[in-house]
């Protein structure tokens, strides 16, 4: 199987010359999906999306069509596109916004047409300056072209789209924090209930928050039909998935693959994809779905990359970021790095995440620096338990949002697999691995 030639949906145009311009986009059949959509009723499109069974590509994997169906019947309705991709080793939306902004705009306008929104906000991570620049330029082109604004393509449908740069907080990728930030407030996740922005979202109005990759699929689905989309993939995991392969592989990068048809082994070792572990080292562990997912081991290489299969081995597909780690990797250091990221991005609103995260970071740092005690291992697990009771998967939480419970998995799964490595740090009073290629202590921000 040559994965490089599998069906491409969202990345089909990415390698075209100046793919981000409207001329390039139109030459490749751009805005045909929107033109077709405007000849259909919103319900017809919604049905196609339901048939396609597009799982949300932001990480939680909630069906996009079902989410739209939960919209509270009230006006106004807002559509918000979540482009605040900020997790370490996750970079698929980045590529889509930068490489094919018109596809995103077209998908967003189709989604707005379905849900009856007259206003779309595209929230883009502030640290994507090129993406923001290209998206804004594309939006201007789209307005000129008549694909956005009043009476789109001479239809009676009008929608305005605004690009909103984020202000540098990972937490604003959490959809309710994103809405707070859009409202001009501090980016605090909202406390549930109400559970869904579809009921009470931006400015209290019903709001749909969709991921960049999710809406980028819409033009294709409208043109080719939901059943053609659903013909790809398996089970609940339909269509293609854009996988961000990072970590210790020879060929890191974004790979759009038919979903559920590839295994971790394919992704990591196929010459057309990951191309194997760097320096032909030994694979030690894999972070299968972003750094908040529990780690899996080489014994799981033949597990399919589908949502269900990864859930079946006690982890998650998440947003599609796969990070293999080779045998030179210190597992304590890896967990410390991950926890440090989450703690520093903790919004500080609720206690377990704010204080528990800082504490976990300090304990891990101490162990890594050779100052650990054997009792620290139980302490780590108990602190994790106070953030995520039971330290199980899927996680329970004492927190407001899932950022806090994103810290325990790398500790718990790391400790379960590599307890000896933790103990070696403690007994030897030092880290047994060579120093990082990066400075060990990054300056505090």
């Amino acid at each position: 199987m040559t994965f490089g030639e599998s069906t491409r949906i969202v990345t089909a145009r990415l390698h075209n010359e100046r793919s981000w311009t409207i001329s390039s986009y139109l030459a490749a059949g751009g805005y045909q999906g929107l033109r077709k959509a405007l000849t259909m009723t919103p319900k017809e499109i919604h049905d196609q999306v339901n048939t396609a069974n597009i799982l949300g590509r932001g990480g939680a994997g909630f069906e996009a069509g079902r989410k739209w169906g939960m919209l509270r019947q009230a006006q106004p309705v807002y559509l918000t596109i979540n482009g605040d991709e900020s997790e370490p080793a996750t970079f698929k939306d980045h590529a889509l916004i930068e490489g094919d902004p018109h596809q995103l705009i077209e998908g967003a306008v189709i989604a707005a047409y379905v849900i009856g929104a007259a206003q779309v906000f595209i929230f883009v991570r502030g640290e994507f300056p090129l993406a923001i620049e290209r998206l804004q330029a594309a939006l201007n082109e789209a307005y000129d072209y008549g694909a956005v604004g009043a009476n789109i393509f001479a239809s009676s449908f009008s929608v305005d789209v605004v690009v909103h740069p984020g202000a540098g907080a990972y937490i604003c990728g959490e959809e309710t924090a994103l809405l707070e930030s859009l409202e001009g407030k501090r980016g605090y996740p909202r406390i549930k209930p109400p559970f869904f922005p579809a009921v009470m979202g931006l400015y209290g109005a019903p709001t749909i928050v969709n991921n960049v990759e999710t809406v980028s699929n819409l033009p294709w689905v409208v043109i080719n039909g939901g059943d053609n989309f659903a013909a790809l993939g398996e089970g609940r995991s339909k269509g293609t998935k854009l996988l961000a392969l990072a970590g210790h592989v020879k060929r890191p990068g974004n790979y759009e693959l038919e979903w559920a048809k590839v295994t971790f082994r394919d992704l990591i070792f196929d010459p057309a994809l990951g191309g194997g572990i760097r320096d032909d080292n030994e694979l030690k562990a894999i972070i299968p779905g972003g750094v908040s997912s529990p780690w899996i081991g080489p014994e799981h290489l033949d597990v399919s990359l589908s949502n269900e299969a990864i859930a079946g081995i006690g982890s998650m597909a998440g947003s599609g970021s796969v990070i293999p780690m080779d045998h030179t990797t210190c597992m304590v250091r890896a967990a410390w790095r991950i926890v440090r990221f989450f703690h520093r991005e903790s919004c500080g609103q609720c206690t377990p995440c704010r204080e528990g995260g800082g504490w976990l970071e300090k304990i891990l740092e101490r162990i890594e620096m050779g100052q650990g005690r054997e009792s620290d291992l139980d302490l780590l697990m108990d602190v994790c338990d106070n953030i995520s009771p039971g330290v199980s998967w899927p996680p329970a939480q004492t927190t407001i949002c899932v950022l806090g419970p994103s810290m325990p998995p790398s500790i718990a799964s790391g400790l379960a697999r590599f307890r000896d490595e933790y103990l070696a740090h403690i007994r030897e009073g030092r880290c047994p691995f060579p120093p990082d290629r990066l400075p060990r202590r990054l300056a505090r921000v």
Partner: protein
Amino acid sequence: MSETNSAVSQVADPADPGVVVHLRKPPVVTASAVGTAPPRTPSASDTVTVTIDGRQVQAKAGEWIIDAADQAGVYIPRFCYHPRMKPVGMCRMCLVEVEGPRGSTLMPACFNPVSDGMTLHTRSPKALKAQEGVLEFLLVNHPLDCPVCDKGGECPLQDQTLTYGPGETRFVEEKRHWDKPIAISELVYLDRERCIQCGRCVRFADEVAGDALIDFAERGDRTEVAVFPDSPYSSYFSGNVVQICPVGALTSKPYRFKARPWDLEQVETTCTSCAVGCRTVVQATQGQVTRLIGVDSDPVNWGWLCDKGRFSYPDASDAGRVSVPMIREGDELVESTWAEAIAKAASGISAALRFGGGSSVGVIGGARLTNEDAYVWSKFARVALGTDNVDAQLGDGLPAQTVLGLPRATIDQAAAAPLVITVGSDVKDELPVLYIRLRHAVLEGATQLVELNTTPTGLSPYAADTARYKPGELAALAVAITSKSEPTGPVAGVDASTIASIRGHISRAGREAGPSGPAVVVLIARPSLAENDEQVATAARILAEIPGVAFLSGLRRGNIHGALDMGMAPGILPGRVALDTARSYYEHHWAAELPAEAGLDTSGMLVDAARGHIGALVLLGSDPLVDFPDADGALRGLVGARFVVAVDTHLNESVRRADVVLPAAPWSQRRGTFTNLEGRVSWLGQVTSPGSAWPEWMIAVELAARLGVDLGYESPEGIWAEIEKLSPLHRGVTHEVLSGPYGRDGVVVPVGASGHSTAAVRPLDPMADPGISSAERHKVAASSLSYGRAGAGSSSAMKPAQPRTAQAPASDSGPDAQVEPATPPLVGLPPVPVPSPSKPAGSAVGGALTLVTRRKMWDGGTAVQSSTYLSGLAPPPVLVANPAELAALGVAEGEKVTVSSAKGSLTVAASADAGVARGIAVIAWNLPGGRVGELIDAGDRLNFVSVEPGGDK
């Protein structure tokens, strides 16, 4: 054991009414006064059954789990939750285990409503593990410096750690460090290391006070409460954040390191700083008041206090305090004795009475008196001095008959009314906690606000409509918004569309009003001290014709409403009755002849004194030189009066001119009752000793004795008993009632008139009132804590008193007992005043601006200026005018201008505000360095000023 303990145990003794602490056994309440409005029987539809810790309890549908648990007597630990703010579920301390179809989950009790059949566990292993975990997290970065922390001993973090926290720390790393403390305002210090990020202060500032000047900064465990760059947390309500902070992160400058909570004596009382009458606890140690804490009185202040009330307590500074009697020797006041000073005062007064009779003496002031003091002085003036020249107002208020005769609303009624119209007052500056209540009603309730004001106020941002009318034309505006026909053009400078919109609000309010409460509540106050009271009195009378209208008086000074009710106004006698209708009644009961005619008000007395007609003037806690709108008129009056006796707590400017100065006991050093702007009577407690000062009633009794009249009073309780017996307004409001279960909320007089209920006494919440409760928790038996939660007191309401028959005070066996006159009627609606043509509108020269002046909270008055902590808060005086006005003068922002009138001139900086209409010059009343009173002629209907660039012309 501390004094507090004994104070609390004393209160169970009804024979000792001197100490009233809010935690007392409900005494037997007299049947005449209490017990109407049937206890709210919850209907089945709004009650749900919840199982809390295995016990089935009834709860109100939709209420938060934490509230339902409180009602059931189950305490769930908490930090961020506050019953007077919206829940946020941030601290996670209140996690409880709730059973559900998919197993049990941990939920914050403050953010999840109860539902029927819900089963929850607050002390299950899972809940306890979560609670202990959260507490351990909160302590991770907390410095645990309890021995040097102001909060130690009354700290919810300390208390809840003992009950719910881990026994020892597992944290061995270094805690976070910050500079500490940092001053976030002139009054409040922030220690970020102690902060547990509960957000109570941040939410209070934004949600309750509307001053969003503090917020969180940074992330993770570096999260801190911060002020914005170059913008201190200068809010009128900043002290509340200190009170509600559940740790020692926010401390107040005046209390910092002053005392430990277990050393404090305390008494519950009412703040007399303004006429709102917020319920408060005063705490003292070693005879010095150290702190005030707001008490949650449901109908009044909801636990909040303004900074002026909280921090201007008598012992905050002794600057200028009068502690011993003084008499004039030449140009100097020298210390004297009570005997000598009283004798000298009496002889001065006697001399005046001998030469000029009752009309040649007068009493100015009385708003700082208790009701009992005011009653005795009112009687003293009529009986011993033979004069009706008595006025508690200083020419800066409203006609007494207007205040007393208009139908009254309560604050709760205003907050529930579809429409509130504010006239004249800047509530935020003058009646601060009323501003909090009205703002809340507008933002959270169904109340709409219409503002009739010449200039912007603190409530302007919340007004649905604002009529910026032309000064001096308020009555015309009132006619336009109430008359049958729509105006065709602008009236009083207000365009027809605004007037039409206001008329729409009034008719909408009439349709939406509930069956019991008023449709429209008008807050009526003097729009400007540079304008006489004629327009506002006329406007009030016109607005009184709105169907379903009721009024809140905007008079701001302390117990002014109590003083007026006690007859401290010409033509008025105790009990809100008129001299001419009640004369025979009081002549009978007081067994004395009363003045034949109504006397003079302050203005009249000062004019008479300036003409040499006043032989003796008593200043009763007043400072006309500063407070009378016309400084020149006040000075002429004081100079013209041949003999001046001052009864005061401080040596203010007027007192310094007196011949005899008698030291009066300040607020915390005496007991009695207070009446707020609703007519709510509440008990004032005494916490410190008066030293050599006397309460005012005692001074009157002694003076009367020297003048040959035996008033015969021995205690405030005895005086109150006479008031309750004689005053038709206070019938049924016995001392037992006031010190009983209604003590906290007071009683609105006349009982039953407003349909007011004192039912809702909130359950004691140790987190809502941290300062008090903690002490109580340690010192009070558990049975006392249930006060207010259950029992007769909590669910019943005041009942209209049975009108007594004329024979009622049968014990009064004077010679004429058998022909006792009937009880006089209360003062009614005042007549519509006829504008007097004689009063000129001042002399407006070309280019002149109409002067508008009102009080700010931080001003040049004694309360603020004698306080070490507050005196610096008063801003410098500024002339505020429309930008076009300043441009026409060629004056830039901040430049000095000279403001002059026929009376005098003043140099101030100029400031532009587009919210101020053209033709108006606004200068705040008497800020330090700018005596606006020197520009004003009280005889003029309006005052005009000319403004020139440059200073000191």
